[in-house]
C-alpha cells in the first residue's frame, strides 16, 4: 500500500502528475488538483514518476 501526499501550499495545479499517474491524480472542473491519498503497490512507479515531474516538487509518498 502507498500513501500519497501533495503539499497543497506548493501545488500550482499544473497537472503534470496527471499524465504520469492518471489513476491517482486529476484536475477537477475548477482546474484544481484532486488525488487519491491511498493506492496500491502496482502504482509505485507511476507515483515516483509523478513526484519526479511535479514542477513544484509537491508530491511525496510512503510505503506501508
Amino acid at each position: 500500500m502507498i500513501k500519497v501526499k501533495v503539499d497543497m501550499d506548493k501545488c500550482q495545479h499544473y497537472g503534470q502528475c496527471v499524465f504520469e499517474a492518471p489513476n491517482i491524480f486529476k484536475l477537477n472542473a475548477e482546474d484544481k488538483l484532486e488525488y487519491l491519498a491511498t493506492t496500491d503497490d502496482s502504482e509505485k512507479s507511476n507515483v515516483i514518476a509523478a513526484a519526479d515531474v511535479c514542477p513544484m516538487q509537491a508530491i511525496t509518498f510512503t510505503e506501508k
Partner: protein
Amino acid sequence: MNKVVIVGASMGGLRTAESLRRSGFSGEITIVGAEKHYPYNRPPLSKDLLAEDKTFDSIEFNINKEELGANFMLGNPAQSVDISNHELTLNSNQKLSYDFLVAATGLRSRKMDFQNPVQSGRFSLRTYDDAKRIRSAVSPGKHVVILGAGFIGLELAATLRKLNCKVDVVAMEAVPLAPIVGELFGKEIQRRHEAEGIHFHMNNSIENLIGDKFITHVSLGDGTSLECDIFIEAVGSLPNTEWLDGNGLDKANGVLTDKTLRAIDLEGKCIENFFVVGDIARFPYVNLQIPARRIEHWNIPIEGGKRVGREISHAVKPGSVDGFNHEEPFNPLPSFWSDQFNISIFSYGEPKIADKVNLVYGRIDSDFIFTYHRQGKLVGAAGIGMRQGLNKLRSEIWL
C-alpha cells in the same frame, strides 16, 4: 562489476542514477559535481527561495541515499576525459575509470564583457550560492537593473519588485519573450509587469557599468543612464563542456547525440558507452527536418536521466529492463512553466519554432491559450491559467 561515472550532480545526474537503480543496475555509480551541494532544484532560486530567503533544505532533492548507493564526489569538477581509454580526470587530479560515462554538467550563466571590471554589485543567477548573494544585497528601495528579459530576467524582476526594489529591465529585443511565445503574449506580460511598477528599456543594451569600488549606475546604449545598486545579468547560458575537449566530439553547442542520447563524434560515429543528459544534450528531432538542438527546460534532464539509466541497464543485460524499447527514439515532449507575480505561464512543445501563432482560448487581458503551428502542424501550446484546456492540446503536438 560495471562502473558508471556520472559527471554532474544536479537533477540530470541524480535522475540518471535513480533510473539506473530502478532499472536493475547493481554496479558502481559515482556522481561527480562541481558545486559542493548535493543535487538541488533550481527553479525556486528566482522565485520563492529568493523571495522568502529560504535555505538549502527547501530545494534539496529528497534522495534515499541508501537505496541509491552512489558515491558522491562534490565540489570536485571534471577537468578532462579520455574517451578512448575510459578515464576521467578531476580537478583534484584524481582519475576515475569507467565502463559507462554520463555527461550531465549543465550550464553556467553567460557574462557580458564590460570595460569597467567592477564586480561589487554585479550578479548572475544559476546556483544556490548566486541566489543567496543576491538576497544579501537586496533591501527595500534598492535600485535593481536586470539585463535580459527572458524567463529568468522576468522572474527576478517580479521577485525583486515584490521585495520593494526599484526594478529596471534592459533587453535587446523589442518585446519580452516574443522570440519564444510571440509578440502578443510578450506584450501582455510586459504590460502586467509595468502595472507592478517595473520599467522596461527594450531595443536597448548596457554600454558600461559605472562605479569604482561598487556599481552606482549603468549606461545604456541609447545614451541614458540608470541608477543601479544591484546589476543582474540574465543573458542566457553556456554549456559546461570544456572538460570534453580533445575527444573529437561534436560539441559546438552542447554535445550532439543520437536518438538514444549517446554522444556522436565529428565523424558521425556513435560512442556506445558515452551518454549525455539534460541542458548540454543536443539531441535530434524525431519527426521534424530541423537540426538537433539543446532544450533548456526542466523536464528534459528528468526524461533524459530516465532514458539513459535504462539504456545502460539494457546495455549491461539486454532484455532485462521491463517495458523498455531500445529502438524507440528519445522524444520527450518539452514543457516549461514560469511564475511571475500572479502570472502562471505553462507551455508544451516548442512554440519558438512556429510560423503561425494564434490566440485560441480566453482573453489576452485575463487567462488565455495560444497555439503554435509550423507548416500546418501543432508544435506548441502555451498560456496563462486554463490548465485543462492546455493539457488537452498536449497530445496533439507533433515534434
